[in-house]
């Protein structure tokens, strides 16, 4: 499933989508950045409620497929601009972290 495919589920919407055709192969959940850095795999969808600018470097360097902000969390404009430039997909959902993970699992 690609990030674009996931967006067919109306619970998810795109904040930035510079690389919508990236494949999602699994899910990682976490808010502590070094845990994500060390344990997320390349091509994971990363679900978090952390929304400060540092998530962009983590997503880029750990090479996750997209950041998914759960519980209706969003990011400010500056982060959107940087994410678009760096080729980082950011999605948002009103679902809880658990519900989001289950929804993705159903589509994998």
């Amino acid at each position, binding site marked *: 499933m690609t990030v674009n495919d996931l967006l067919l589920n109306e619970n998810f919407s795109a904040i930035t989508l510079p690389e919508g055709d990236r494949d999602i192969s699994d899910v990682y959940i976490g808010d502590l950045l*070094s845990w994500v850095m060390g344990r997320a795999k390349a091509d994971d969808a990363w679900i978090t409620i952390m929304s400060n600018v540092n998530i962009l470097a983590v997503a880029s*360097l750990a090479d996750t497929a997209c950041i998914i902000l759960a519980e209706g969390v969003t990011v400010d404009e500056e982060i959107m601009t940087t994410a678009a430039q760096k080729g980082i997909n950011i999605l948002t959902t009103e679902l809880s972290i658990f519900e989001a993970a289950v929804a993705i699992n159903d589509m994998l």
Partner: protein
Amino acid sequence: MSEALKFHFEVDGKDFTSAGHASVMVKKNLRQLGLPPEKIRQVSIAMYEGEINMVIHAGGGVADVSVTQDYVEIVLKDNGPGIKDIEQAMQEGFSTATENIRSLGFGAGMGLPNMKRYSDFMEIDSTVGVGTTITMRVNI
């Protein structure tokens, strides 16, 4: 490549918003060089953790990366407070990060363990009151 390719970065200790910049630049360069994605990821993770540590714990520093035929070497040097007990600092979960830093998602005490895990060689040279130099290599 017969001669090592070298990159040098000044890592700003005050600017949290650009923290990780040097690592992102190195990743970009290694991609252009056509290194295998898993190797690039290893270098990216190890270097990012070291870079962010210099920003958070040492007020910034310098990063030197060289790419040879056999490995990518990352040298991170700061003039920060130094690490008193390296063995303790290397343990998963050990952190001296402030509440403020933790609220940004740092301070899990996983950075140094990640650096160890994702590099093939790592050496910490630290003197309290003088600074810290960390050398890591990822074999390619």
